[in-house]
């Protein structure tokens, strides 16, 4: 019981770390593309690790299987959504940031 609690805590901690870094990148990075690059980590690794922590904490039950299915669905769909947004911005002609430009 204690071991699973510790493992769940560590997993959730690293998930929150990914989430925090994604939010930090969103605030600090200069450009649309780099911001999307930071947020993509948030969507995939952050939620996956946090939900994995929930599953380890819950143990094997119907709820944990549901949580895993939600997480897998997110892992499938969210990178594709990020890719679609960035590609749409590229086709619309959003400027790419270069070194020395002011922050957009």
């Amino acid at each position, binding site marked *: 019981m204690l071991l699973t609690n510790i493992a769940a805590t560590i997993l959730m901690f690293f998930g929150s770390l990914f989430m925090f870094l994604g939010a930090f990148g969103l605030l600090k990075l200069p450009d649309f593309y780099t911001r999307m690059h930071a947020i993509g980590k948030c969507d995939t690794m952050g939620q996956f690790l946090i939900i994995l922590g929930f599953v380890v904490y819950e143990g094997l039950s119907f709820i944990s299987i549901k949580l895993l299915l939600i997480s897998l669905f997110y892992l*499938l769909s969210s990178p*594709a959504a990020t*890719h679609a947004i960035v*590609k749409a911005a590229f086709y*619309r002609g959003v400027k790419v940031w270069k070194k020395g430009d002011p922050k957009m």
Partner: protein
Amino acid sequence: MKEQKRDVIVEMTSKKILPIILTFGLYVMVGTEGAGGGFQGGCIIAAAFILYAVVFGIQKGRTKMPESWNTFFTSLGLYLYCGCGLLAIIASLFVAEFLNYSAFWPLTNLFGPYEARALQVEFVVEVGIGITVFAAFVSMFYDLAWKDEDEAEDDEEVMEC
């Protein structure tokens, strides 16, 4: 603005994801134990068709879910809902009220009044609401959607005539 092409990643992902979305919509729609209901499930199923139309183009989307079906499905859901209510009146020989589900005696005799009501709400009423919402949302999306170039030209010709 550059020329837009079909994107392989988005197309493959939506192809793999569409059955999952439809199954999830059905799971939300049917049943009264978990969260959700007819309206939410219908919205999710409509979102699947809207995703298909967004990714593969409105022309292919219209062939997958023709607009003539929208009217059919909208009224089918309403008929399911109302028919379940009218069935109670007819089965009890005009004693019960409209939508008084437990008065439908074949199910009530088999399972008891509460289970009979739950069964009818789960499998008929919620599904009816879901079908209506799904068809109405898809039809609204088709009305608001952009038109392909050929279609737009046709419209202009008609306007000129």
